[in-house]
């Protein structure tokens, strides 16, 4: 896969503190990270490694204290709520472990929801949503509610929802965490397919098998990105080649 010449996503010396009482918890330490346009990357790390904080910052859901976060040629810092909501809507598609579909909406309506926040008409939204449902192979399930669907189907709906805004970046937080291994494989196939269509995909996971499907693994430990030679022996991985 040919990488674009400019980084779609770049973090430079990003620090994040959480204030707990009088103490300050240093959660992310000088994070340096670059993900090229169209890359398929896994972020791994034990719980407490700063994974979810990093995900929050990447997803423009949280601010950081110092450093720079560039998404394309846009500096993501001190944005107004309106702006960050707009960037989330247009740049980023989220896929969650527990799917997070709205239970009272049909699959079609769930997929169409990001377009609601873009101000499209209902008819237009549903028309586009039907196309994306078709793309994840669930055209016949449009009028079903999430309760009537299997876990794999729900995650497909969630992926269709993440794609509908034509994002540059898909952020998948443990996308297979709630699925059996067969379904996990299918979902990872789907994510690979998306990646092949040219969209950058970033998967946060602690599952090595999931990470193995990606091109590159970024490991976090104690709020720091581990350099490749720090990686423990036995964690070797074909995708590592892209880093070294």
């Amino acid at each position, binding site marked *: 896969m040919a990488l674009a010449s400019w980084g779609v996503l770049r973090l430079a010396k990003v620090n994040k503190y959480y204030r707990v009482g009088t103490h300050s918890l240093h959660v992310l330490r000088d994070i340096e990270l670059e993900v090229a346009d169209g890359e398929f990357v896994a972020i791994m790390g034990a719980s407490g490694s700063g994974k*979810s904080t990093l*995900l*929050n910052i990447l*997803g423009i*859901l*949280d601010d950081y204290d110092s450093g720079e976060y560039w998404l394309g040629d846009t500096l993501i810092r001190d944005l107004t*709520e*309106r702006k960050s*909501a*707009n960037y*989330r*809507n*247009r740049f980023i598609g*989220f896929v*969650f*472990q*527990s799917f*997070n*579909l*709205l239970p*009272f*909406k049909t699959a079609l309506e769930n997929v169409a*929801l*990001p377009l*609601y*926040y*873009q101000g499209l*008409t*209902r008819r237009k939204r549903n028309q586009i949503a039907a196309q994306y449902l078709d793309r994840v192979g669930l055209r016949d399930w449009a009028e079903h509610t999430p309760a009537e669907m299997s876990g794999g189907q729900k995650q497909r709906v969630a992926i269709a*929802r993440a794609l509908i*805004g034509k994002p540059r970046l898909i952020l998948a*937080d443990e996308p297979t965490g709630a699925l059996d291994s067969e379904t996990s494989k299918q979902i990872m196939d789907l994510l690979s397919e998306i990646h092949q269509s040219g969209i950058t995909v970033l998967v946060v996971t602690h599952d090595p098998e999931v990470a193995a499907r990606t091109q590159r693994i970024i490991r976090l430990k104690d709020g720091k990105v581990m350099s490749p030679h720090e990686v423990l022996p036995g964690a070797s991985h074909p995708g590592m080649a892209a880093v070294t």
Partner: protein
Amino acid sequence: MLIALLEAIGLGAVFALVLVILVAIVFLIVALVNMGWVALLQWRDIFSLDRWTEVMVTIGRSKLRTTLTLISVAWGIFVLVFLLGLGRGLNNGARHQFARDATNSLMFFANKTSIPHQGYDVGRRITLDNRDYDAARKVPGVEHIAGQFFIRGGAMGGGEMMTKRGGKANSFQINAVHPDAIYVVTSHKIAQGRFLTDADVTQRRKAVVIGQVIANYLFPEHISPIGEWIEVANVPFQVVGVFSDSEGIENERQLYIPVSTAQLAFNGQDHLGMLEMTVGNASTAESKAIIDKITAQLAERHQFAPDDVQAVRVRNTVEQFERFSAMFFMISVFVVVIGLGTLAAGVVGVSNIMMIAVKERTKEIGVRKALGATPNSIVFMIIQESVFLTGLAGLLGLSGGVFLLDAVGKAKLTDFILDPSIDLRIGIAATLFLMMAGALAGYFPARAAARVNPIHALRDQ
């Protein structure tokens, strides 16, 4: 008394309470302004059919919660409206009880002595006369005064007398009075001609003023009663006026003749059965002073003990009305307090439900936020939901209350409740108040929820 009360509670505590209330008010105002600002930013959502569809879907999703909210608000408004209307009805009823007579009148009825005085035994009948009328008239504070001669002796009023014209005859209540009686019986309105005058009394004219019911009974429609002659107790009288009565046709079955004419025609010498007067806008204390003065005059002239309350009985509508007013005021206050309490309970109920509702939806809010909803749009969506719900419930309660009041008014269960109704503005204000409370109740948790980090909210299973 207030100061003693304050000291009992402790000035510090009172001060603290006032401070807390002030802080709460400032806090609420700030919240309202913030909410208004959000509404201003999100004004498009108010007119967005799409948004309302979204709101309806969300509301319709949890039917139990929606029903509970509706009931709690509707009940609050319903009880408030009903109680306020009932309070108004009670007030109307009380006023109606007094409506026949002026609320500033005094009446003195001749009766029997109950205390031995100057060698007289008890049980001596007192009879008032024209000189009592002349003397009472000079008492300061007396505005209009009339004596009434009771044609059949001691009985209250003049009793019923046969009234005839041509072949038509019936019994009607007769009152032999001075002209100022019209000021005491305030519900009478002269419809044709005039009431009795001083000239009627001094010249002992055979003039009569008849009620509308009597006029309609005795006279065919094409004949004006004024100037016509009728017979009352076999004495011919000329009709000089016809009156109607605002309190119903029962009061129109009466006729008025000059007191002097009656005294002459029915062998009454100069006797009077009653003195009645109005006292302007005298207070209860002033009215009592007037009573004391007149009673003292009567006691001296008729030789009964000044403290003998039985010899001449007094009816003081000033005092009665004040007492009734105070009582009904207390009832009204009571009713309003209960109503406001119910309203407050409604507000608390709505707040609770909204808070739980928002809490339950933390996940949904997180999803919406991740998909590109601004916090303002989320907050305003919840405000829209709660305002719509409370508004709908308020209207339900309002119409329910008004409907029930109407039914109670038509049923006429008791004379004490008359025409219960509410000022619709109060009902609408109460509804708006609840809508505002609902909006605020939704605003705080919504704001908190909109700030929540979606990843945390969504990871939390």
